[in-house]
């Protein structure tokens, strides 16, 4: 009996969590007038190809100039660029902190640690002004690099490097390996799983950025899908029959890649999440 109640609770949980995602997808396959008349849909509508074709390839749609495909490309650039940048910067920094004895080590560590205290949301306006002084508005580097200014990845690799046995370094040094050789031939291959795990987390994080792209990109050719949501809602207000189907289609496109990444790389994702945030 208890077993059935457990399953019942879990099924209610799954419906609550996945229901809106499924409904968003199903609704996107109906046409706008139908949705306007009958509300959200739970069944297949048959307009899948038209709607998604329109959203992906036709200029205009919501923003007037940009296609869904261009936004999809920008989302991938932001997601992958952010993840790669984060991994490179934080691996190098963690290597410097853990494997070298130098006077400024502790100072640097605390300076990096402090960035955990202040999320980007708190300092948006001054960050924006710094960016416009540096002429980085509407560039990919302006979109990606400032997001790298936090300590999460560095902590993660620092933790991992500390757990690597000291004997490895001793052996490598006896064999005559210098700092570069040790890093590239031993530490990097050893961190493969860690890198994969943090890549998954950081890709999702980068893909899902909203506030920063909103401020940094005014030129529509730099819009990401998540950034495009804002435009969808602006078009919404005041139109007679809003293009619900297209709005849902764009939302589905914005959700799908990160959801797939999380599902396919689930074990890496959970590892990355539970080990990086501590």
């Amino acid at each position, binding site marked *: 009996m208890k077993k059935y109640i457990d399953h019942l609770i879990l099924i209610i949980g799954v419906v609550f969590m996945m229901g809106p995602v499924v409904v968003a997808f199903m609704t996107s396959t109906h046409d706008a007038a139908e949705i306007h008349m009958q509300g959200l849909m739970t069944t297949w509508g048959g307009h899948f190809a038209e709607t998604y074709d329109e959203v992906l390839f036709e200029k205009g749609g919501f923003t007037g100039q940009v296609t869904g495909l261009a936004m999809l490309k920008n989302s991938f650039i932001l997601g992958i660029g952010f993840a790669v940048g984060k991994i490179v910067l934080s691996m190098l920094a963690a290597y*410097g902190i853990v494997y070298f004895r130098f006077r400024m080590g502790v100072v640097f560590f605390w300076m990096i640690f402090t960035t955990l205290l202040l999320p980007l949301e708190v300092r948006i306006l001054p960050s924006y002004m710094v960016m416009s002084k540096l002429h980085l508005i509407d560039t990919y580097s302006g979109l990606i690099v400032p997001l790298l200014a936090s300590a999460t990845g560095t902590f993660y690799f620092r933790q991992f490097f500390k757990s690597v046995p000291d004997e490895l370094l001793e052996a490598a040094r006896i064999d005559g390996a210098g700092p570069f050789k040790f890093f590239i031939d031993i530490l990097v291959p050893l961190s493969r799983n860690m890198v994969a795990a943090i890549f998954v987390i950081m890709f999702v994080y980068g893909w899902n950025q909203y506030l920063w792209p909103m401020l940094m990109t005014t030129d529509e050719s730099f819009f990401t899908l998540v950034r495009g*949501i804002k435009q969808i809602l602006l078009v919404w207000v005041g139109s007679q029959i809003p293009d619900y189907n297209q709005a849902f289609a764009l939302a589905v496109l914005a959700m799908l890649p990160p959801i797939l990444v999380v599902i396919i790389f*689930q074990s890496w994702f959970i590892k990355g999440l539970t080990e990086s945030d501590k």
Partner: protein
Amino acid sequence: MKRVQFSHPYLPYLFLLPQMAVIFIFFYWPSAQAIQSSFYLEDPFGFGSTFVGINNYTDILSSSEYMRIAWFTVWFTVLVTFFSLSIGLLLAVKADAILKGASAYKTLLISVYAVAPPVAGLIGVMFFDQHIGPFVKFAALFGWDMRIGINYYDTAIAMITIAVWKQIPYNFIFFLSGLQGIPVSVREASAIDCRSGLRRFWTITLPLLSPTAFFLLIINMTYALFDTFGIVDTTVKDKAANNPITLVYKVYMDGFRGNDLGGSSAQSVILMIVVFVLTIFQFRFLERRVHYN
């Protein structure tokens, strides 16, 4: 620290250079600017600024509008944290208890983690939409005329629901991995000693989970304070007038819509202090009262 380390005159600096450069330009510089401009009054047309001391701060803290938003933020944070933690915990306990289908449930329950807050907001807004929203139709059955974006409390309810929905997977993952970290011997011993499942949960499982719960408490508070920006933005649809907003949203509104640089910066500094206190609280005060094994 390591027993064996390299020592080199400049190499460690070289390794740290990229990270430190990014942090200096994009973290310390803007933060310093925020603190500096919080003491100045910027001319709205861009003709210079005047030093006004702590006027920006006193203006904010004596403004009844700011206080109203601050109270809403507190309530929002408390409710979002409470509901997303308890639902996450309930689902994790159930997923840990069953044998069949556990991994399918797990996959389905964590997927929503990957949905961006504004996308969650967009979908949520559709569910609460005046024309097509099933929640509005459902509420209408009970004679409740829900008007998101117009009625203050209805909008607040929608915002909290969406924010909780988005955060449940995160809490679920951490509670589940915490539960699976409890040794089998402890579970068996407690099962022998105590037949009541509910009592076992309160006296054995929950205390053992308290480090996880405590960690999640802080994470959820920061989530509700900062990461919900996208949800607030999509729910109020740029018309913040009578709608509930959080303090972070107010920083954005005043800075980018109102062009009030000084006021917005002062609000940033106030939030910095809140985050700072929260972190100190995390390290000093609460950790002592948590049971560790």
